[in-house]
């Protein structure tokens, strides 16, 4: 499903320019959830931006495809329409645009790009209500401007709300667990698990085993110095928890 081959990317301007992704290869087959762990500054968020097409995070070489489609050639909104969703590590405020207006505009924009019909207002409202209930998001919150004045945990829950509304083919969750209280973590994990399906893939970036207790990953990868240095089953996360990156990285070095 998602296939990254020898991906290289620079970030920064002028003298500050440096290579962050350095020959990263990774494959997430349809139906699987993979976790990425790695030290601060390893390039995890950079990877999520390269895949979603953020300005200033262009790949310099290598390939990234979703179901064979070249992602790197597409505009960010085209990638979204192709099914890529990113739950941001730091969700952004959209002043003056209420959540409901925003999510509906986004869904319809994606559908338009794909040549599909718009979602009807009643269908949209019904779906929003159901998903809001599952995530303990009250209707009042959905009327407020996107992320404006939301607490850290509320922002993360709203990311998952949007993911569930949009039903992407491939979701990247960048530290969606950080900032969540224990109950919210469970709620969010339930949301993620509900979306697990044979034709959907997920990449879960996290620092903590906690989330992986709820979302059992099929594979765990360690990202360090811009590439995947070690991959394994769920037990790799447990090993990391015990030994730290020094232990694991020392082992591969």
């Amino acid at each position: 499903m998602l296939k990254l081959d020898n991906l290289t990317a620079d970030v920064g301007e002028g003298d500050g320019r440096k290579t962050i992704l350095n020959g990263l290869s990774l494959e997430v087959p349809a139906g699987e959830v993979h976790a990425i762990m790695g030290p601060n500054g390893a390039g995890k968020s950079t990877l999520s931006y390269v895949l979603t097409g953020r300005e200033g995070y262009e790949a310099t070489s290598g390939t990234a495809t979703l179901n064979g489609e070249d992602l790197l050639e597409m505009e960010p909104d085209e990638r979204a329409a192709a099914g890529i969703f990113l739950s941001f590590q730091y969700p952004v405020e959209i002043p003056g645009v209420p959540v409901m207006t925003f999510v509906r505009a986004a869904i319809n924009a994606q559908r338009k790009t794909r040549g599909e019909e718009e979602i009807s207002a009643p269908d949209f409202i019904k779906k929003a209500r159901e998903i809001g209930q599952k995530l303990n998001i009250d209707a009042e919150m959905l009327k407020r401007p996107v992320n404006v004045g939301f607490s850290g945990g509320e922002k993360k829950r709203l990311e998952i709300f949007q993911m569930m509304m949009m039903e992407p083919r491939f979701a990247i969750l960048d530290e969606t667990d950080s900032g969540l209280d224990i109950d919210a973590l469970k709620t969010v994990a339930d949301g993620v698990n509900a979306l697990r399906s044979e034709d959907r893939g997920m990449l879960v970036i996290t620092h903590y085993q906690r989330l992986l207790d709820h979302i059992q990953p099929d594979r765990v990868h360690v990202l360090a110095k811009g590439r995947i240095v070690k991959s394994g089953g769920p037990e790799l996360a447990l090993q990391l928890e015990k030994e730290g990156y020094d232990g694991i990285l020392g082992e591969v070095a």
Partner: protein
Amino acid sequence: MTTTALKNPSEAERQLAELFSRHTPEAAQKAAFEAFARTGLPHRRMEQWKWTDVRQAVSELAPVKAEADTSIELPSNAVKLSFDGSGWTIPDELPAGINIFLKSGGHDFAQADALPVGALAASMTGYSSKDMLMIEVSAKVDRPLVLAYQGGGDAAFSRVVFVVRENCHVDIFEHYSGGAGFSSFLTEFGLAEGASVKRTLLQEASQQEVTAITTTAHLDTKAVFTQSALSFGGKLCRIETHLEHKGEGAEATLNGAYLAASGYHTDFTTHVTHGAESCVTSQLTKGAVADGGRGVFQGKFLVPRTVGQFTDAEMQHQALLLENGAEIFAKPELEIYADDVECEHGNTSGQLDEDALFYMQQRGIPKPEARALLTEAFIAEALEEAHDDVRAQLVDATRRFLRNQRGG
């Protein structure tokens, strides 16, 4: 002779003097023209007009064709008065509490010296077939009053005076849709104790037109004046409001939104005097300007010693440069002599937040649409106080404008 009072008249000024000499002015009109003639058409060497040079923009009075304007659907109970550039059409049936008088010369325009273009309008009433319009409000009127201005050919001038009696109320929607090469519209408000006015204004004009919309407002004790204006500008457009709090506890809201496309110029200028204790002024002006467009904001709060005690006033101007090449000039001024006051002001101009744009794109919204959505939300905040019947339509007009911009 008044015509000779103009020094070195430009072609347009000569034509204006000629127009003036053709009608038979009364004393108030003569005085107003003399006041106008002392400066002539305002120009950039006058401090208040340094960014909006009317003399240069109006080289001569020449007719223009009215362009299709935004059609605003009015509530069925609206009371519509139309001005075609030469005269008023007034419905036969008026709601209780509204009285309309046509006066030939009108009273002296007290602020003629500070407002030369307004003075010009006051001098010219009667140049057209009908005269100064005086509207007396003597009840809480629940039907909105609509004043529609369109047409005039080479020049259009009007003067409207609202007298709002004690504890009375009126909602007013003014739609200026152009159709005159040069136009100046003067509106004066007098609000008695406890009176309130909710005024919503939409201005549109073609790129050939120069227009000035001048307003004065006097607020007695506990009067409430709420103004929301949306301006698309023209070759040159000046919307100038001079408001004075004259009685304790009066409240004013002066909100404005401007959208300037390439080749368009729009100017919001306001002057508020806190001439009585414990008055409140809240002012929010928002603008978005495209490459080749120009936005001007000049705001002044004057709070005199003693009478201005316990003033609560806030002035905000926020503008978006939609593209490189957009121009925004802003001058917020607080002149405060009283010591126990709360006065704030803020002034920012910048670009749309790139992080927000990327976030929206990541969710599937193409960049031009994301820009339009963010800008619309930004502008809409300044229209929140607009009359319920037209607010959504003003936001729609904003949206259409933004969809037509190229975007960067």
